[in-house]
């Protein structure tokens, strides 16, 4: 809803706070999603996401949510779907070139960003939308991505060991394994 969307931008800082916490929860749930299978949770999560973000931000389910970098103003509501706006056609008073009755999504966005702690993210150059992801859950995509990055950081320790002893690894791969270990195979020292 247009009015709620404007409200969300005016309260961008509060929504930013909620979003940061919510993301941490989603990342923490990665093992659960992994066990259930991301494929299986995709549909139900996408339904909830569409309903909630549709109400709050007029979300179009592009699948690549960047609200935190656009002042909590959804860029898919821009008739030109700019990811790096505003364009040069903004009307007097900050209204849209294409839909004169609507506030410019990006005038709102820069305003919202100025209220946010991490508002400077709006200065980053955003890539074009991958249209093949339309309709899918951006929440799951973001949490999966963060969880993968965390795993990659854990993997880095193994990689450096493998690189330091590359010759030994060539003849004895198990001496410095690169593959991720299942938790059942690792003795963390806190077990008897």
């Amino acid at each position, binding site marked *: 809803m247009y009015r709620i969307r404007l409200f969300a931008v005016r309260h961008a800082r509060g929504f930013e706070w909620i979003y940061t916490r919510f993301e941490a929860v989603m990342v923490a749930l990665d093992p659960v999603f992994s066990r259930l299978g991301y494929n299986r949770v995709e549909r139900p999560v996408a339904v909830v996401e569409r309903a909630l973000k549709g109400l709050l931000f007029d979300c179009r389910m592009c699948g690549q949510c960047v609200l935190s970098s656009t002042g909590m103003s959804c860029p898919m509501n821009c008739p030109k779907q700019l990811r790096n706006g505003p364009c040069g056609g*903004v009307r007097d008073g900050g209204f849209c070139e294409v839909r004169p009755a609507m506030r410019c999504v990006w005038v709102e966005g820069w305003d919202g960003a100025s209220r946010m702690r991490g508002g400077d993210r709006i200065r980053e150059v955003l890539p074009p939308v991958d249209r093949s992801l339309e309709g899918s859950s951006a929440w799951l995509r973001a949490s999966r991505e963060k969880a993968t990055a965390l795993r990659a950081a854990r993997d880095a320790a193994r990689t450096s060991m493998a690189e330091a002893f590359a010759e030994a690894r060539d003849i004895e791969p198990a001496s410095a394994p690169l593959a991720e270990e299942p938790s059942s195979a690792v003795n963390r020292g806190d077990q008897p």
Partner: protein
Amino acid sequence: MSAPYTDPDTIHSYEEPPEGFVAGSKLERTLRAGHFAVTAELNPPDSADPADVFAAAEPLADVSDAINATDASGANCHMSSIGICALLTRAGHGTVYQISCRDRNRIAIQGDVLGAPAMGVKNVLCLTGDGVGVGDQPGAKPVFDLDSVSLLRMIRTMRDDGMFLSGRRITRPPRLFLGAAENPCIEPYEWRPDRLAKKVEAGAEFIQTNYIYDLPRFEAFMARVRDLGLHERVFILAGVGPLASPRAARWMRANVPGIHIPDPVIDRLEKADKPGEEGTRICIELMQRIRDIRGVAGVHVMAYRREHLVSEIVQRSGVRAQAPPVSR
């Protein structure tokens, strides 16, 4: 001049830019030498006749470093920018190939970004484009697969990393001087310089602004641009143009997106005996005053349907005459 493109022995030669240049176009050379640059916008013909293109370029060629060929500006159909640029570069003119994101997706644009330089184009202007609703075919599908900023980054990646967006390698990357637009005189005023910074970050090397008729507002914009140090990272060409009459000015203000003309300018046209001449005088005065603003590297003359005046305007303004290199 047409030999390199028709002689079968040289048809595969692609001119690499000299050291220190990204493209080596006349526009890039002028700007990097610190000289005040002039670019001019060509009114594209509604015709398939090359003679019409050369006729339209004739009044602009001698007084400009490059001629801009618009890409269906205002969402109105005309001869394509790439067609015009191909013709003009063969005749030895510098051109700015304009790309709007409104009509083509990333696949089409990346293809043209190889095709245009193959035909001699060395400057490109990356635009988002006006909405289709203001044009002559409002029922067209608006594409907007990219925006001007992601378009800049895409072409820079093609040029500097020799890659398509997919990561596939380009065997001979396009050598293009990258441009973008900015509109300093419309809202949100306080964020316009920050958006300019994004364009520079994305790859813009020169900027052509929309029409500047509101000098105080442009000066405020430039002050902030200097504070951000952007004038040292990008060449800024201020957009100017002669207004034909108060009626034309009002019509433009009401119907063309992104045009801001303050009332005092229209009043001045209204009170003049010969509004056309007054419009030319206003344009010349603006050019002279813009030239003195620190950080401005040139002007971009958009004399829609008044192209015949461009040569006179540039000469009378004296912006190019034995000017010392502009301090940036």
